[in-house]
């Protein structure tokens, strides 16, 4: 019970101190609208084409929302030593880091619904398979957050966290099939796509929204879960190795 009091309060504190700040809320709103608008204008399509953009916009909203905030907040707390206060608490490191990432995961899930709600006003989304869509959104939020955690524990300065985040995020926009199909990429780039977790998240989302998938759904989910486990435990190992010196 005591550990869950700690877990809940770490999450609440992060939500209040970082995620629910007006600049972040407006970022969560503006970002998906900007991406949708950009591709909508670029493709010159009808309102129906919004549906084809939706999987990519959902994925990118989650990815950018979670990674940037988590990587920056953890690096910031490490830098001003307030993270040490958490390490001194009688909570297992695994639970502590789950608490620390839970705020970002929630933020990512909420971010995902911004483009969905917008799309619902502009086009018919009745064909969306929610039973696949919802777990996919949660899983993409987990994997993106853990990627942010991995970035946070790999750097020591806040500006490095931003730069390092972009090192992963921008290639993902083009390599993970968000807006261009992987089949349209040059052959030599395709293996890179298969090494990135978002490829599998977008594949599930496209299946749930458009009914088109590259991989079997079970494989997509398994690979995403695998990425989550690997990223989380590599991050924990890095904390042990680099922060508890």
């Amino acid at each position, binding site marked *: 019970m005591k550990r869950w009091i700690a877990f809940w309060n770490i999450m609440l*504190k992060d939500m209040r101190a970082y995620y629910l700040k007006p600049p972040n809320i407006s970022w969560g709103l503006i970002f998906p609208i900007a991406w949708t608008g950009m591709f909508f204008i670029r493709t010159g399509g009808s309102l129906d084409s919004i549906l084809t953009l939706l999987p990519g916009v959902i994925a990118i909203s989650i990815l950018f929302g979670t990674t940037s905030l988590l990587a920056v907040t953890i690096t910031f707390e490490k830098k001003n030593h307030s993270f040490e206060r958490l390490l001194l608490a009688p909570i*297992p490191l695994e639970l502590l880091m789950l608490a620390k990432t839970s705020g970002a995961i929630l933020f990512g899930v909420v971010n995902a619904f911004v483009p969905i709600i917008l799309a619902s006003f502009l086009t018919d989304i009745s064909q969306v398979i929610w039973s696949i869509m919802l777990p996919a959104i949660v899983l993409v939020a987990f994997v993106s957050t853990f990627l942010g955690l991995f970035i946070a524990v790999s750097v020591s300065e806040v500006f490095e966290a931003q730069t390092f985040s972009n090192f992963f995020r921008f290639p993902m926009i083009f390599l993970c099939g968000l807006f261009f199909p992987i089949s349209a990429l040059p052959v030599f780039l395709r293996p890179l796509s298969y090494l990135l977790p978002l490829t599998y998240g977008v594949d599930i989302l496209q299946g749930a929204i458009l009914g088109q998938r590259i991989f079997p759904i079970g494989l997509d989910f398994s690979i995403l879960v695998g990425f989550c486990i690997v990223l989380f435990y590599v991050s924990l190992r890095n904390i042990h190795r680099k922060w508890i010196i």
Partner: protein
Amino acid sequence: MEIQEPIISPAHDDYPLIEVSELTKRFGDVTAVDNISFAVLQGELFGFLGPNGAGKTTTISILTGLARPDSGAIKISGLECTKNPKAAQNLLGVVPDDSNLYPELSGFDNLCFCASLYGMPKHERQTRANELLETFGLTEAANRKFAGYSKGMKRKLTIAAGIIHKPPILFMDEPTTGIDVSSARQIRQLIAELHRAGTTIFLTTHYIEEAERLCERIAFIVKGRVVKIDTVANLLQPIQERKVMLISISNSSANDLYIKLATAFPRYEFQTISAEQFRVESVGTISIGPLVRFLENQGAEVTEARRIRPSLEEVFVQVTGIEVGLLRKEKEKGGGG
């Protein structure tokens, strides 16, 4: 730094709450903590005294689980903590040398958040936070952001956060460094009160007077090694019988008079402090009359002669070989203390 609080010495039993044996920590080629062993008894206020870079903070980091030792063993309250530092973390309160609370949270929210990390229920942590804010004179600043606090207020709130869960063991790393004299005095009084209330306190400091006034036992740590551990009374005992005087002169140089004085008064030990001041030390009584007459015959005018109470500073210098000036410089760098 003038300290006027009373020396406290509550009774405690002989149960070792913290046991450290042959602890070593290296950072690359630098050995920060070098094979140290000591025990802190239940209810004791134990001082860790040494200059900056001696290994005090590293020792605290290892004992509280923020760093891993390369070798050695740690037991806290009988629990083996060397491999599993989490085992005893619910018993520990930590006040680091840098205030590490959340700048974007208010004083009250910071305390409540810290209490929640130890699983305290909401009502209990709010009551305790208000109680501590009052104790530390921070009630009026309770709803202000921590970022806007003064250095002294920050330090007080950091101490309050360290004791919010009423830990039986409290680690305090340089609690009065870099803050104004009045805040430092208040903090020392709070430390004394916590000790009186039965908290076992592990205090690191480079202020010799602070350690002498507050602590029951002191370990001198230099370059990662514990060079002496004993009660303050035992540490002071060898120098208590020595008489020390400080004599200030004008119209002549103490350096020029040094050899003449040493020849004329072989029972005394002389030490030149500056061109205008020297120190006289003796196992027996120092007769001031003959000394003053001798100096006046040499053309010097004695402007001041005062007896100095032998302090822990003398013992520290004797044991560690570290010049007091070095610690004083650190004190000045540190601030008001």
